[in-house]
């Protein structure tokens, strides 16, 4: 474990140095992230101007949900998204062979290979927005709320990581699906909608949406003092199940990997 932490830290530092070498890229990535984060909030702001509440969530609560989504997705983007984005390229070019030959866990290396610190700006700005919205709604912020929120955010990130890994593993089966990234991102974006939106959907679609449904709503509920212990149990169960499943699927897919590049 200590070895992996040390390697992770080294990889992280190398990535950030590389990022700072190209100022243009750095600024562009920074701008893009602020703009997308703002878009997530603005689009809900426009909708909540027309409707008072959606599925029991008031306008401000929906904005808080969108903001919490930005916090969680900001961490996910900082730590994992670039690595997943590069996965199809790695498989296509046959670079996975080199990774599998290293004395490291391949899932760890695939997930930690790249990181991008600029993405954290979305998280920072939305923490400030969350505090503002909670004050506007007159919701008291207790120490226990903060601790439970931080814990649930970590669980939420684990869920996003696991479902992404599961879906990105499909690239091993079909390396040409290089654009899977955009579809998975759109799927993850479903997390910014209240759970009630998905009620009444076909069971199969509902089950498919289930992991991302809880990844953000439960942490947000903890801030609003609306969380039940059942919600915590469900989100922890989903996180562990998706993590185990994605791990199993990754290992299973590697068994079918033929080491041929395109």
């Amino acid at each position, binding site marked *: 474990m200590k070895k992996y932490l040390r390697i992770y830290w080294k990889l992280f530092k190398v990535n950030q140095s590389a990022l700072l070498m*190209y100022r*243009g*890229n750095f*600024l*562009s*990535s*920074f*701008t*893009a992230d602020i*703009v*997308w984060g*703002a*878009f997530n909030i*603005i*689009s809900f702001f*426009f*909708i909540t*101007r*027309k*409707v*008072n*509440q*959606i*599925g*029991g969530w008031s306008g401000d609560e929906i904005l808080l949900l969108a903001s919490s989504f930005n916090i969680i997705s900001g961490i996910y983007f900082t730590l994992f998204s670039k690595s997943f984005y590069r996965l199809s390229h790695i498989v296509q070019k046959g670079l996975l062979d080199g990774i599998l030959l290293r004395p490291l866990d391949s899932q760890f290396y695939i997930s930690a290979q790249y990181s991008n610190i600029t993405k954290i700006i979305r998280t920072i700005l939305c923490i400030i927005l969350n505090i503002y919205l909670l004050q506007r709604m007159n919701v008291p912020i207790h120490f226990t709320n903060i601790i439970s929120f931080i814990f649930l955010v970590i669980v939420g990130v684990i869920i996003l990581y696991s479902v992404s890994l599961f879906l990105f593993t499909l690239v091993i089966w*079909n390396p*040409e*699906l*290089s*654009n*899977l990234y*955009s*579809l998975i*991102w*759109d*799927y993850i*974006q*479903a997390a910014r*909608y*209240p759970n*009630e*939106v*998905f*009620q009444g*959907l076909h069971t199969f679609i509902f089950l498919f949406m289930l992991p991302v449904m809880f990844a953000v709503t439960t942490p947000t509920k903890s801030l609003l003092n609306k969380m039940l212990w059942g919600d915590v149990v469900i989100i922890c169960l989903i996180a562990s199940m998706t993590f185990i499943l994605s791990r199993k699927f990754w290992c299973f897919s590697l068994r079918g990997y033929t080491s041929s590049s395109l």
Partner: protein
Amino acid sequence: MKKLSEVFLLKRNLHNGHSGPDAFDRGPKSAFTNRPWIRIDDLTRMTRTMKYLKIFFLYNQRIFEQRAKSLIFFLSTLVNPLLLLLLWIAAFKTNKVIDWSLPDAASYYLLLVTTAAFLMSFVEESVGKIDIAEGQLTSYMLKPFSYFWLKYFEEAPYRILQGIYALSILSIFFITFNKLFVISNSPITILLSLVIAILGYHIAFSFKFIIGLLGFWMTELAGLFNVVEIAIYIFGGYVMPLTFLPPVAASIAYFTPFPYIIYYPVVALQGKLSVTELIHIINVQIIWLCLLALIYKYVWNKGKQLFTSFGQ
């Protein structure tokens, strides 16, 4: 000059095995005149058109080879509007939204998916990130074709395939929830809506092409592309109809080309606009196209002077 060209054709026919006066009669009839032979400029024009068509068909083959990849692109454009529709359905249960009903919302987002699949070009990625940044433009510049039209015929098959996917989804929704789907039944409205849609595609293509050409001046385009994409999402009616936007945002939107790409084709097909309004929109679209053509000429002429490429 005219005689020379006629002699040239005669020589070609003779070379192909025809001889005597018959040689002219056996030659292909010109599409432009009743003469039994073709003038060189007519021939050049025809062959150029044929070559563009050939490019179109070649890309068509390539795109149909990559159906799965294209399907994923389509699905990713489908997810967001459907999520927004689900959100509105949940909102309708607890709120009364003025001027909007469930059938209106459902038709709006389903038509949005369809028109976006057909009309929203993504040419800026290949122009800015591949052709200019990676130097592929050299191969295009050496070809005896306009770069703009080459990219146009490269992009068209993508739109057609995406549109076919969208129409399939639309048909499924139409069969399953036909009461929720409202579309104009006036032939003149449909006809004018199609004109608006075609002009919308050309606005989208020209605008995105110009954005891609900015790669001549900028080395990193991701930030700009994201800003443009979000502007199109908000002002192009992706999130919600423009009439629902705050007045300031709506008035900004009407001064941009974005509503003329997706929003107006959608509301026109829904039958929300009168014939006079439809004609007015077509006029504005033509003005936008002329403006974009001028900007394109200027940007292309200035930009290509900055372009350098070398290799072995």
